[in-house]
């Protein structure tokens, strides 16, 4: 039987506010345990939550960016369950009335294919603390620094049909929240976490199969691996006549497998009800309108502009807009160098990307600034240097030897474009290679390359290749 994979994703995005969603404690990552938890975060008797208005701004901003309905009235609800890192015995979340309703996100699958993924809802909630099992023999440590950190949980429709689509969706969403500057998207620190709901159904059937939920997958690579593993597992179960159990599973990246965590029967009854400590959140059109004004150019808008204004391919444009910083870097280089867009793309996605990857850096930590690269490309563009020499200069710049102009100056790498300087070199090469010259003139055209090579060698690669080409051809034919 042919199976169809059905995937829906729940993404927890940590909002980059200075303080927590219901308290004034700092949200900075990496502090000593329990030093960033105030009375509210500790769930002391008598304390009360007060909503951080910034989180509302950010949620609305996100909602607008995915064309979603913004709820004029949303309600915070308590999700009740006991766990040591959940200080109040309930998590404040939104249940029946989330702040962001139905919307959608378009993902680019290849050069031609765009797929629209439905967004069911997005709601605000607080994060729990962390249980630390390693450092305490026979005990568990609780760190409540993370408790109360604002999260936006973004729930998709079950619209994805493969691990590839799921990854494309996640990458698009990741870029979006970073564009909106509502999250740093740092996956290692847990600022962007994903749960995947996966089910299989016979191809052509519209009814959804029973799903398993894979919890807390924290990298794009693991999402792909976890989904692929789970799809294989479910197909095996189904084809051997079994049925899928609705359950929560955990992905183990060390063993590359998913394992059952708890079944539906063991699942908590969360006893959701409206939090009586918080009033319903009322948002009017004016508020929404003001936030709309602050929306930046979104990734898909930027991509379209890059294609149209700079004549880039969808592929190149897509790569560039993957991050706001990269796109900005590209545009700065383009503007300052005045070089053709294609040349800039090739350098940014080629030499620069390779250099960054090699040292596990990203565009924000690049050793060559956009202005510095612009200067280098400007020198190619005005024929001061050749592309080949530029690569040597780039290496020097990367190693901190100075900017393009100073390296060109210091090492005398300036391209020779003066005909009167190139001609004597050609004459010399011709004089030194009479045998090859004779063969060429007898019709062995292939030797043209040999002469080019000799000339470039003689001038240490500095002569303008196009000029060398033209002058050499003329001279070889002349005499």
């Amino acid at each position, binding site marked *: 039987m042919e199976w169809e994979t059905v995937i829906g994703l729940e993404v927890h995005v940590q909002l980059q506010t200075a303080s927590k969603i219901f308290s004034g404690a700092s949200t900075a990552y990496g502090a000593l345990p329990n030093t960033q938890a105030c009375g509210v975060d500790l769930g*002391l008797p008598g304390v*009360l*939550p007060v909503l951080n208005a910034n989180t509302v701004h950010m949620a609305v901003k996100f909602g607008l960016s995915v064309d979603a309905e913004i709820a004029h009235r949303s309600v915070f609800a308590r999700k009740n369950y006991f766990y040591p890192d959940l200080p109040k015995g309930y998590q404040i979340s939104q249940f029946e009335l989330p702040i962001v309703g139905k919307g959608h996100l378009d993902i680019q699958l290849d050069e031609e294919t765009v797929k629209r993924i439905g967004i069911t809802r997005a709601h605000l909630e607080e994060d729990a603390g962390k249980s630390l099992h390693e450092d305490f023999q026979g005990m568990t440590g*609780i760190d409540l620094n993370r408790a109360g950190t604002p999260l936006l949980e973004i729930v998709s429709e079950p619209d994805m049909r493969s691990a590839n689509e799921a990854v494309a969706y996640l990458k698009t969403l990741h870029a979006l929240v970073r564009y909106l500057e509502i999250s740093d998207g740092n996956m290692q620190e847990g600022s962007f976490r994903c749960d995947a709901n996966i089910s299989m159904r016979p191809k052509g059937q519209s009814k959804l199969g029973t799903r398993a939920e894979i919890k807390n997958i924290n990298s794009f690579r693991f999402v792909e691996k976890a989904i692929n593993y789970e799809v294989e597992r479910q197909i095996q179960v189904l084809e051997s006549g079994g049925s899928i159990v609705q359950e929560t599973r955990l992905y183990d990246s060390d063993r590359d497998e998913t394992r059952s965590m708890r079944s539906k029967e063991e699942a908590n009854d969360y*006893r*959701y009800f409206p939090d009586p400590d918080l009033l319903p959140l009322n948002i009017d059109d004016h508020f929404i309108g003001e936030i709309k004004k602050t929306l930046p150019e979104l990734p898909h808008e930027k991509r379209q502009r890059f294609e149209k204004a700079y004549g880039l391919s969808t592929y190149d444009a897509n790569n560039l807009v993957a991050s706001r910083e990269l796109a900005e870097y590209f545009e700065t280089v383009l503007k300052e160098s005045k070089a053709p867009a294609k040349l800039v793309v090739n350098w940014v996605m080629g030499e620069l990307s390779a250099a960054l990857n090699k040292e596990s850096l990203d565009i924000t930590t690049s050793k060559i600034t956009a202005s510095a690269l612009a200067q280098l490309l400007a020198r190619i563009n005005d024929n001061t240097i050749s592309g080949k020499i530029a690569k040597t200069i780039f290496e020097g710049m990367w190693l901190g030897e100075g900017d393009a102009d100073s390296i060109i100056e210091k090492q005398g790498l300036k391209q020779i474009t003066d005909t009167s300087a190139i001609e004597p070199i050609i004459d010399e090469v011709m004089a030194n290679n009479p045998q090859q010259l004779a063969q060429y003139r007898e019709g062995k055209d292939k030797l043209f390359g040999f002469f080019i090579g000799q000339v470039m060698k003689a001038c240490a690669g500095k002569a303008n290749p196009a000029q060398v080409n033209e002058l050499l051809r003329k001279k070889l034919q002349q005499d």
Partner: protein
Amino acid sequence: MHQKTIAELSQALAQGTYSSEELTKHYLQRIKQWDTSLNSFITVCEETALASAKSADEARRQGKAGPLTGIPMAQKDIFCTNGIKTTCASKMLENFTAPYDAMVVEKLNAQGMVMLGKTNMDEFAMGSSNEHSHFGPVKNPWNLDCVPGGSSGGSAAAVAARLVPAATGTDTGGSIRQPAALCGITGIKPTYGRVSRYGMIAFASSLDQGGPMTQTAEDAALLLNAMAGFDERDSTSLDAPVPDFTADLNQPIKGLRIGLPKEYFSAGLDPAVGDVIMAAIKEYEKLGAIITEVSLPNNHLAGPAYYVIAPAECSSNLARFDGVRYGYRCKEPKNLEDLYKRSRGEGFGEEVKRRIMIGTYALSSGYYDAYYLKAQQMRRLISEDFKRVFEKVDVIMGPTYPSIAFKIGEHSKDPLEMYLSDFYTIAINLAGLPGLSIPAGFANSLPVGLQIVGPYLNDSKLLNVGHQFQQHTAWHQKIPSQFAK
């Protein structure tokens, strides 16, 4: 000294008749002498009280004294006090000391009031008899075999016996008004949101409201002036201007339209209590008030709605008491589940556990719509009843409680019987309205309270109406003879 109201003490302090230190020593002495029989205090803080009395006297010398500076008072042990134990009368918090002050504590401290201690109460404010305290029942000063009412029974008994001139209370379904009635003192549950709940250990967040328990309506107004006000740390606190609650006290009440809900004077009301209430109404008539009968047709829904909503909220509010971070933890837990089950099983008393279970059940999947949602709908109907009635009358009056104080242990076998007695007070919390109870007389030598209810934010009106009654009657001046000297 202890015969005096706050208003009188304030004057005496201002005139230098005695110092705050003398006053404080006097009351501390009374507590030492009498509270062994009443059990109205859980914690007495002699040292800090004397220290704050001295600073109050110093402030007065520097001309920085306000009307409440140097006046002793007590906090219900549900308000968090920085550095002083806050137990909520529970084994769960027997040794808990909060690292911060509740807003109410902060505000009264800022006025220079002298806190003598923390008063006894029903555990986590759940109860109407003060029998449900880990620290033992409180006795009614008018008859030591009787309950003082609850949950603010300690505050009511202490004020009635003049162990302290005034105290704070909290009221979720009548916990200020009912003990005030049964002990013969004045107590007001302000409009929901008037007084910040920050630092007041939550029972049912949408119903809880703190307020003063005093000898007179005038004293209540003085205290409420200090307690009320918007607090940005409590999202449900009202961002509305706070009036001077004493400003209207002396307004004549001629022409005041009083509504008597017929539902309040039906079966279930002790006839002797009914007689006292009707006599008080007569008194109001003499003062020029106009009496009309009104109806609150949905009043019978108040009990069912309340006993779903309050337990539902409490089941969640009390989840934080889990033995993990503070409070009682069972001995040698075998595992996490054992830690939870035994810490909570051993740390909470019977009444608290009963309500947690009712609330958990009401919120559970499959029952939510039938219980919690229905209760919320009933709550709206109850509110609408009051809105309609207040189009015709200025205030509603009736008994605060259907009986006089009952014997300790009398209702302990059947909790439902006690729940059903709360029906005059709980509807007021469900509607968020202000409610005042003032002493109206005696039945069988025990005090009877008259409840006065007004429209939203009409706290001043109630205090005015109560004060006018107290200007023409002396019930509020009665002190149980045993404690009079």
